[in-house]
């Protein structure tokens, strides 16, 4: 029995050695044929993980995900033509056979409808912003709008999963996990990837933990969800009757037991577990310091709005996101639900915008005044756009929009993107892209590039092949790089 263990540990005998060597040399030779630049530059071959590949523009990301897909036509992509043509049929030459969701596939007419909300140009950059976002409008010169995003999925779940993991199916690591894997953690007392949820007042779509999964990566890269309750990280408090010293003793003994187990089985997940217990122990000190908002100066509260003191609101999450990011968390992922306006845009969207507008602008300016905006990338946007035609019947003062994957708007700010610019353009119907399309894979490639990573070299071997966030596609959008 013992012998077998020994053998399995060594795993090498003469035959293995010779076999491996023959195969190894052969594959090196073959590899040089298949990958022409395998030997050309020693720099790029098999880059080690844990540090940026090259000088990064951004060190951390805050992704303000607007879950449910906010309408680009009511927020940042101004299309007066739609108002002019209100009620007229969407021309077939524009739709070009675009598939429909189950919600409008039975619809006989596709009447165009323009924004109910007024638009105006702001800042030196002259960015168009709707009246629903007065505070974001004020900081328009800090933002880089991408008006030519397009995706492959037409329903929430696959589109959301695609935006977050680079695949529609939901078994791949999330963006944050990839960055945690590629760059490691800056602060050993906090997880590298944190997730904050909030819910607006509009029609909502769920979020689920597969969106912040580590997929096939080591489980230490999984996103840690912060709770909306008073206790932001659940089960972090010492249980009643046990103090910190007891915890320490308990953990030390537990680590010894786990270590014995590791020596016996060699499962790397055991090591991960030991590390996670240790991090949780240190989080007991780090998290209360972070989540305590009572020491924030009055002006900060005012910047984000009073809501920022109520746990679980978008404003509170923005403030917490800033604090986490300031404390070195690589990737803070917010999800704000409630943007799925199939009907009642006029009623619901202003409420959604109200929840988001002030705190978003505050977050960016707060980062700026701390000298952190140049190294923090902030991303704002949803999983797809909304149609330029009305879902259901147009009424005199209300309408709704269905899902539209062909063209939508997101914006970024800070870390390495050009401020005060608009990239890409949609046609005057806001339906198709006419300039500089940006695919979700390109978006991912660009984000990784800003973080100092070659998107085609950050990979992980799983089930016999190498996977990347951008998988087999993606091109860095150089037009938005500062």
């Amino acid at each position, binding site marked *: 029995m013992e012998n077998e263990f020994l053998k399995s540990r060594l795993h090498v005998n003469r035959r293995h050695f010779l076999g491996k060597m023959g195969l190894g040399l052969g594959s090196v030779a073959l590899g040089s044929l298949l990958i022409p630049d395998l030997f050309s530059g020693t720099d790029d071959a098999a880059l080690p993980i844990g540090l940026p590949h*090259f000088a990064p523009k951004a060190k951390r990301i805050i992704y303000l995900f607007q879950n449910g897909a906010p309408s680009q036509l009511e927020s940042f992509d101004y299309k007066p033509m739609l108002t002019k043509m209100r009620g007229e049929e969407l021309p077939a030459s524009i739709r070009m056979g675009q598939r429909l969701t189950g919600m409008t596939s039975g619809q006989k007419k596709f009447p165009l409808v323009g924004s109910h909300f007024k638009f105006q140009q702001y800042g030196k950059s002259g960015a168009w912003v709707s009246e629903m976002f007065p505070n974001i409008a004020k900081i328009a010169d800090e933002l880089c709008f991408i008006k030519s995003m397009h995706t492959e999925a037409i329903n929430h779940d696959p589109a959301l999963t695609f935006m977050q993991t680079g695949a529609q199916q939901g078994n791949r690591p999330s963006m944050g996990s990839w960055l945690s894997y590629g760059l490691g953690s800056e602060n050993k007392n906090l997880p590298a990837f944190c997730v904050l949820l909030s819910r607006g007042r509009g029609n909502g779509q769920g979020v689920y933990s597969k969106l912040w999964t580590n997929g096939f990566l080591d489980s230490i890269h999984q996103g840690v969800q912060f709770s909306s309750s008073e206790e932001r990280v659940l089960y972090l408090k010492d249980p009643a009757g046990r103090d910190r010293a007891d915890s320490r003793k308990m953990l030390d003994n537990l680590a010894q037991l786990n270590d014995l187990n590791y020596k016996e089985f060699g499962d790397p997940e055991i090591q991960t577990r030991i590390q996670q217990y240790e991090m949780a122990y240190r989080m007991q000190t780090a998290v209360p310091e972070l989540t305590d908002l009572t020491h924030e100066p009055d002006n900060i509260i005012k910047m984000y709005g009073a809501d920022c003191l109520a746990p679980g609101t978008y404003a509170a999450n923005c403030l917490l996101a800033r604090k986490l990011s*300031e404390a070195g968390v690589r990737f803070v992922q917010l999800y704000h639900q409630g943007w799925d306006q199939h009907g009642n845009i006029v009623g619901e969207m202003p409420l959604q915008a109200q929840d988001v507008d002030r705190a978003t602008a505050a977050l960016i300016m707060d980062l700026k005044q701390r*000298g952190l905006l140049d190294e923090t990338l902030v991303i704002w946007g949803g999983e797809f756009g909304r149609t330029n035609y009305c879902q259901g019947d147009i009424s005199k003062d209300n309408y709704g929009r269905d899902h539209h994957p062909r063209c939508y708007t997101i914006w970024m700010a800070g870390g390495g993107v050009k401020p005060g610019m608009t990239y890409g353009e949609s046609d005057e119907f806001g339906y198709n892209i006419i300039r500089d399309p940006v695919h979700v894979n390109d978006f991912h490639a660009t984000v990784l590039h800003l973080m100092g990573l070659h998107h085609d070299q950050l990979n992980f071997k799983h089930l016999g092949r190498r996977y990347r966030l951008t998988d087999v596609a993606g091109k860095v959008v150089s037009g938005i790089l500062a």
Partner: protein
Amino acid sequence: MKRTQRIFLNVIFFLQVLLLFLFLFEDRLSLPLWLEVAGRLHPAILHLPIGLMAFSIVLVFMQSQFKKKVYFKITLTVLLLTSFTSSVTALFGFFLSKQGDYGLDALTQHKNSGIGLSFACYFLVLAFVYLKKSQLIYYGMGLLTVCVMVYSGHTGSVLTHGENFVLAPLRKSSNSLGGTEGSAFQSVIYPILEKKCTTCHNRTKAKGKFVMTSMSEFMKGGKNGTEWVAGNPTESRMIQYIHLPLADDDHMPPDGKPQLSRQEIKLLEFWIAGGADVEKKLADLADLDSFKIMGSAAIAMAKPITTEEKPYLFSAASEETINKMNTPFRTVFPLYQKSPALQADFFIKESFKSTSLEELLEVQNQLVVLNLSKMPVTDTDLKTIGNFSNLEKLNLNFSKISGSGLSSLRSLKHLSSLSLAGTSITALSLTPVLALSSLTELFVWNTKITEAEKAKLVTANPKITIVTSQFVDDKILRLGKPLLANEGTIIKKNEPVVLRHSMPGVSIRYTLDGTKPDSLSISYDKPILLTATSTIKAIACRPGWYCSEVYETTCFVEGLKPARAELLTKPDKQYPGEGDKSLVDGRKGFIDVFKESAWLGYQNDPFAAAFTFNSNPPILHSIVISYGKNVGSSIFPPEVVEVWAGKNSREITLIQSIKITQPLTYETQQVAALTIPLKATHYSFYKLIAKPVKKIPAWHSGKGKKGWVFVDEIFFY
């Protein structure tokens, strides 16, 4: 020499003469068709002499392996074959040169060297046979022949693959065509031609007599003149050739060569449609011009993505040193792979000590970014920081410095960003850092610098971006609502009700009688002691802010527990709750989760339940029904509530019946209390009936339908 070999040699001699003859009288020659076929075999058979020649070189080195005679025989055969095949190759090549449309220079070179090679091979055989004594001459001639062969081979490859074919992958493309610097032609069109056309359409090869590597020849066109009609792509020969089917002989680029992409074809067409202008710049075109849009995109795509990396002159610290620096509370890491520059971050202020900063002196030259935000750093610690001579970014926000130590930072000649917000520095103490010529940004809000000094600072230092105050507007904002701090809304006996607000300095005012609270309502100074189930309405106020919106919650005081509780009618299938148990289990439902087991939902049947007390029943003053109200989802208060009571289930009478006023608009959703007053009864059996709204009123979207009733708990007092 054997007879066969002699004949062979004579044939070769004849071939040389033939070659010479053809070479001299080239102009008078016209080829029969079958010889054209022979000519086209030239690229195939040319490999034979090369291989044979190589073999003869191998033989020289293997000389010692053979007997002298054998060596001579083999070598002679090989050399004869080499000479023969090279003559035939030269001959066929000659035929080929008569039919192709090759550029002159390279062709002449190849032709001459090819014929030269044929002669050289012949003389090599002669030297080997007749100068047996002096092998040196044979070797010398051999070397010469090889040289001629290499040269001839090279000139041939230039003909088929274009110039610099071999080294092209290693060379950067140079825009050799000229033309106006920055013109659309130069930046968009020429790169396409260079990538896909000029390997054949160049001076040396000049297929179709069309040369694309010089501007004048490009404009002149090929053998049939200009290749395009400006403004009209469909009439342009160049475009027509591109659009021919791939199988067509005239299709360009020829089958087997890299083809033009759809985008490239479009660009060529747009360029011709726009007048085939070689001077105009993209910027001069109209904004929505398709050529401009696609062209700019192509330029952007082609531009390699550069990553600028700052060169650092200092050497890297060893990996071991860096690893040693890393503790849970201090992270030290290179900015990126192979960068000597380091960043250090400190976390958890309780764990910060001056010594942990001093330990960084081991990497004092490498440290470029230092983040001490919120750490209890004092002015004496700044002395240590003064040693980090390559520091570029220093974050001391919310640290404990007073500014007196800032003069220690004078030695930081590379410092460009300094954050001092939230510290107690003064304007005066900034003088030494303002003198740093490298400084570009400075953050000094929330410090002891006065407003007047701030303005002065900004004007006196135009080169530095100084952030002196926070980016906050003067708008008055509304406070958030106060909240209930108790764990649930069921209040135990003598349990105080606690309200709270997360903002310090807020005053809370509340009412218990259902009226809207205002600044004159009861001030919340201490926890509230409730005697009966009541609805608390509260607002939060604070100077400088608008009062909050009203917070409303109903607190249910724990009541008397009946010995038995059972449902008499079945709840709707979708909302069965936990049946009887849900009535008095002390669990409240959440307002927007009606699927939860705390809720019992009724629509078609009225809610009816029976409660039995012990043989010695308590005196009851009221019954409270806790129900859900969500008017938007057609969940209304019950229309009528009846209480029947008696000694047992058979002997009961109606003791109370209430009609409830229904909402008239979409009111906010909430869990509400319906209090039914009783006249100090003491029965042991009670039956409670709550009837749903029979017909939803006309203003509601579900008009005419039955309303829903949701109950989660019944209380007895």
